[in-house]
Structures are given as C-alpha cells and as structure tokens.
C-alpha cells in the first residue's frame, strides 16, 4: 500500500515539475507577440504608451504621419506595464538579438547616451536635424541631452517636468496655508497642515522610484541645478556636505508622509491629494493628466501647483525621444516618421493629449491648458536638470542602486548610511 502510494506521488511530482517550466514559457510568448514582426515594409513604433492620454497622443501622431505618407505601413508596437520596465526588457532582447524596432521610445540623457549609443546601436541624426533646420528649434540644453560627443542621436517629442509640488486648493484654503517655495516654508506649512489633521505630504513608494523622485527634488532644491548636474559627472562627490543637507531635508519631508506609503503607487498617492486626505504630493506632471483625465478635477480650481521647495527657477526635465537604431531595413521611412515627430504639427498633435509640453520652442500655445502654458514659459527660462529617477541623469545601473539605497533609507532613516551607499554606487557612473 505504502509503496504504491509513494510511486504514485512520485510520478505525480515528476508530472508537476515537468509542467512547471511550460507555464513559465507562456509569459515570454506574450511579449514576443506584442513585440510584433518587423517585416521589411512596416514601420513598427516601439513605446510603452498604453495609458489613457498617452495612447491617444501616439495615435494622433500616427494618424498625422499616415496623412502625409499614406503608402507607408505603420504598426503601433507598444508594450504595456511597469512604467516602461516591461517594454525596456523586450527592447533589450530585441536589440541584443539584432532585431531592432524601426524606432523606439527612450528617455533623453543617460538612458540613450550611456545605453544604446554607447553600445553602438544607434545611427546619428545630424543630417536630419540639418535638413529640417531643427538646431535652433529645440533648446540647446535639450539637444545636449540627446547628443554624445557632438553627434545627435534622437528626436525629442515631449517634455515632462519632474519637480512639481501639487496641492489640494481647498485644503490649503481651509488651513490657511500658502503654496511653499522654500524648505522652511514647506516645513512650516506641513506643521500647520498636520495640526489641522491632514496628512501634509502624500507618498506612494510601493514602487521605490517614487521615493527617489522625491529625493532628487530635494537634491535639486538644496544643491541648485549646476551642482546637481556635477554629481553625475563626478565633479562633485556624494560625500559633499550639501548632499548630506539634502538628505536631511528629504528625511524631514518623510516625517510628514502618510503611514501606508509602501502599499500605494503614485496614482494612489495622487488620489489622497485629490480626495483631500492629504494636502501635497511631489510628482512629475503626468500627475496632472491623472488629476484631469482620470479624476475629473479642474486645473487651478481643484488642484494647484508650484515648483518643489527651492527649485523655482529650475526644471527637472524628463523627455521622451525617438531615434534610429542601426540595422533597420527602412531607415529612410524612419527618418520620415521622425521628421513628422519633430515638426510643430506633430508635437502639437501629441502633447495636448499626453498632457506634456512640446520639446520645440515654437509650438502653438493655444493648444495647451493653463498648466501647459505656464510650464512652456518656465521651460524657456529655467535652467534644466536631468532627472535621476527617470534615467536621464545617470545610467540605469546606478539608478537601480540608488532606488535600493533610498528604499532602505525611507525605513531606517540613516543619513550616513545613505551617503555611503550613494558613494559606493557612484562607481557605476562611469
């Protein structure tokens, strides 16, 4: 009896173990099919724009392209999920397998330059910029973000601002708080809000990058744009006293956040502000899209915004760009698409729907809401700083390690340990 039972369970076990890998395989099949085929004639546009506003923006852009070039077949090869993480994983395997998409979404800055350009996978676009006359149509700082060693490698389609403090206007009015501009004003306002029984600052760091996002705004506000940028070129060490001061500011900000921050994502945190349970939230301006499109709030009436403490004249820039990978079969078609993407019409078709502002300096202001108009003006005059949390300032490897150090810091709050982990990680900057 016992023997039979044992051999039965043994066979059963072998069956289960043998079937296990099959279920693991099925997930990779899905990504393959969504990656789509890159046959000779189709132009597959690879991105992670599958959310409400952004997908509409991409489709508007594709429609515009089809109007101008009706005989070129276009395929929207977007990969959903993980704020681009899934797409980047699919992209990496396609690039390494020499099966690149015709063009793909990539953040300007380190993600492009230290990633695909350094790997020798991108074509230069100097001639396209020249023939389209773009060199003075994009801000110089921005062209620098998509260039390496004097060559230009991608076309920016939009700009998001990272250093925005969103607040609930009625909560601010009820507690008699003015939008804070400096750290001192921020902490004073936070104390007042806490007394009034409102959570001063909403945070949702279930995905740790949101905490890094908050930290980078504290870094920018404490160091200023120039010193902030020097951190990533190695000209300024992370052991600098000012970095420590930034970490102390960050630590103090963390003392005002909602207790359940680690169970929320950024949308949940924004929702706390929308519902009036929390007063403020630091997030990039994609949060505006969430407030307006998903939660039906009114710009300025229901929620307001101000640059994060100490960053009034600065602009933490996150830019989505598209480039031309090496080894595609139809480079001329890709350039045609990029020329539409970089045109005024292209940028004005995409950005109002996506909720970002155009990368060009000569776009038509009337297409944008109050937030957009104000941000476009700020963008012209502010000094630009590349975002760390979104891969523009430093290579992904460094960002991953910073995310880990920040995730530990949020709980342990040990400033010295944070500084020393940042220093250790800075070896990966090169």
């Amino acid at each position, binding site marked *: *009896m016992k023997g039979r*039972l044992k051999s039965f369970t*043994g066979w059963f*076990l072998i069956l289960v173990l043998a079937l296990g890998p099959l279920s693991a395989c099925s997930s990779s099949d899905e990504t393959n099919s969504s990656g789509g085929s890159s046959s000779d004639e189709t132009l597959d546009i690879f991105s992670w724009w599958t959310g409400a506003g952004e997908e509409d923006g991409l489709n508007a852009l594709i429609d515009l392209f089809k109007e101008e070039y009706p005989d070129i077949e276009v395929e929207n090869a977007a990969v959903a999920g993980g704020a681009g*993480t899934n797409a980047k994983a699919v992209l*990496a395997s396609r690039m390494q397998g020499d099966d690149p998409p015709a063009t793909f979404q990539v953040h300007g800055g380190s993600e492009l330059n230290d990633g695909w350009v350094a790997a020798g996978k991108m074509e230069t676009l100097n001639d396209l910029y020249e023939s389209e006359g773009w060199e003075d149509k994009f801000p110089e700082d921005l062209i620098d973000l998509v260039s390496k060693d004097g060559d230009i490698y991608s076309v920016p389609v939009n700009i998001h601002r990272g250093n925005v403090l969103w607040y609930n206007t009625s909560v601010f009015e009820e507690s008699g708080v003015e939008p804070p501009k400096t750290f001192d004003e921020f902490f004073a306002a936070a104390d007042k809000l806490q007394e009034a029984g409102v959570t001063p600052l909403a945070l949702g760091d279930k*995905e740790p990058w949101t905490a890094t996002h908050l930290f980078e705004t504290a870094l920018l506000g404490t160091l200023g744009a120039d010193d902030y940028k020097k951190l990533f070129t190695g000209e300024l060490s992370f052991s600098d006293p000012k970095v420590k001061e930034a970490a102390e500011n960050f630590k103090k900000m963390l003392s005002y956040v909602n207790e*359940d921050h680690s*169970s929320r994502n950024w949308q949940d945190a924004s929702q706390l502000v929308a519902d009036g349970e929390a007063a403020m939230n630091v997030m990039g301006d994609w949060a505006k899209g969430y407030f307006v499109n998903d939660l039906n709030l009114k710009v300025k009436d229901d929620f307001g915004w101000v640059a994060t403490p100490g960053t009034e004249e600065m602009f933490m820039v996150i830019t989505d760009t598209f480039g031309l990978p090496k080894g595609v079969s139809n480079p001329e078609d890709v350039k045609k698409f990029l020329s539409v993407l970089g045109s005024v019409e292209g940028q004005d078709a995409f950005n109002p729907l996506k909720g970002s502002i155009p990368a060009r300096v000569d776009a038509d202001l009337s297409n944008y809401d109050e937030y957009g108009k104000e941000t476009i003006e700020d963008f012209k005059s502010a000094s630009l700083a590349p975002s760390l949390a979104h891969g523009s300032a430093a290579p992904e490897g460094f960002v991953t390690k910073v995310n880990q150090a920040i995730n530990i810091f949020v709980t342990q709050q040990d400033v010295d340990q944070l500084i020393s982990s940042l220093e250790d990680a800075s070896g990966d900057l090169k």
Partner: protein
Amino acid sequence: MKTETTMRSVTVTTRKKRSLTKDHMLAIGFLIPSILLVGVFVYGFIGWTGYVSLSNWNSLVPDFSFVGLKNYLYLFGDFRFQADLRNTLFFTIMFILAVIVVGQILAILLDQKIQQESLFRNIFFFPMALSFVVTGVVWQWLLNPSTGVNLFLAKLGLDSKWYTDTTIFPAIGWGKIEFGIPIAMIAVVIAAVWQMTGFSVAMYLAGLRGVPEEVREAARMDGANEFQVYWKIIMPILRPITVSVIIIMAHISLKIFDLIYAMTGPGANFVTDVPGVYMYETTFRGNYYANGAAIAVVMLLAVAIFIVPYLWSSRKGEA
C-alpha cells in the same frame, strides 16, 4: 527522409545483436526530439546562465570576460540579497507548515462522509485555478492597512499594518541585516496559503481514501481513541504524501515571484523582497545581467537541495 534511413540501418544492426527490440527503438525515436529540445532549451540555458553568472556582463553591452565568483561575493555582501535570503527562509517555513496543517485538517474534515462533499472539495480547490497575480492583487486590497479587513479589525481594536509593517522579529544583527521573522511576510503567507491549500487538501484526501477501514478498526479494537488513530496510524501512513507536499510547495515558495510582485513589491526596507523580484529588477531595470544570472543560480541550488535527494530516493525505491 535522412533520419528514416539512418534509423532503419540502426534497426538492422541492432536486430543482429538482439539486445534492443523494435519497441525499444521506437521509444528512443520518440524520445530523441524531446531530449534534444530539453537538452538545449532547459539544460543548455541553465549552463549558459551559470556561465553568464561568472562573467562581467553588468551593462547593456555584453562582456563575457571571466571574473570568477565576483558577482556571488557582491550578492552575499549586499543588504538586499541578505534580506531576500532571510525572507525566503521564513516565507518557506511558514508557508509549508501552514499548507500542511490546514490542508490536513480540512482533508480530515472532508473525509467524515459529509453531505455535499464534492461541493466543499471544489470550493477548497478553486483558488488553485487562479493565477498568483490575481491572488496578489486581491489580497493587496484585502490586507491594505487603510482599507479591506482592517476597517473591521480596527473597530475591534486590532489594528495591523500587515505587509507595510517593517518590524523584524526578533531582529538579531546578522551581516548587514536584522535576522528574524519579517512580520510583513505573514500577509503574503496568508495569501499564498489561501491559494495553495486546496492542493494539499486534494493530496491528503486521496491519501486518506487509500487507508483501508480495517486498519482503523483494528486500531480502535486495540483501544485507541480517534485522536490516537489519526496521530499514530493515519499520519505515518500519509508520510509520503507529506513529503511530496513539502517538495512541491518548497519549489513554489523558493521561486516565488508573481504573488510578491503583484501584492507588495519589494516592500519598505525590502521586508517582502525575494530573490525572484531582485533578479528581475537588477537584470531588466539595472542591466546587471551577470548579477541577475548569479541570483538565478543561487535559486536553482536552493531548489535542488529539496528536489535532488527526493528524486534520488524515489529512483532507488523504484529500482
């Protein structure tokens, strides 16, 4: 065509030797394709992963220069990986114990010749049909500290932070981390047990049905009470099932990824992080391919510790 002719010639030579029958040849012919596929796509890639884990490939550009155990040394000195090992250890222990105990109790209750037994059997087994991702999302909301069951528990004065709790109990300093039971993991264990207990119920029920009534009768005749019948007679008979449950659950819990990824993510201070999540993030977010491969190898070895002795003993048993 070509393979057919070679096969035919092989058959001719073997027929002379008479050591292999036609049936054997047929079996081998059927097996060869799957042996080749498994050889390449399972063992070949396990070998490849092992090779990558010894290389310097920690950026987008592949770099296969040999660096020895550097990636492993980095991992074992890393706060996050140490936390992962601790979390996996306690998750596995709590998860397996709960699945065995709850599964056995439910199976014994079901075995009491109750009415509508198949209905209950299906209810217990049903969560197995769900994906871990579904379970993770549902339990994330059920055990969310500001919603879900906490709204009831708070009324009873039992407030819990569930998976956002960063407490480690009893928090003994060890390496860079505190060693002990991560309280946040209990929430994940509850979700995992909810999903997987149906499996052990089915296994134990099958086992209980295989115990002949005469054995129980005989024990009762010898003066054993019902508790003693279960403890001294039934449980020892069910031991091979318990071993199987342990092995199947261990290989699930040591490799767990989807449940954690959907339910909690790495967690504050990495209290709910596991090697699978770390491997995914470091490989595909950070482009640390060699580090990711090293994590994969460590996970494989951990599972092997459970599986290999079992396969060994069952092979001996059959021979």
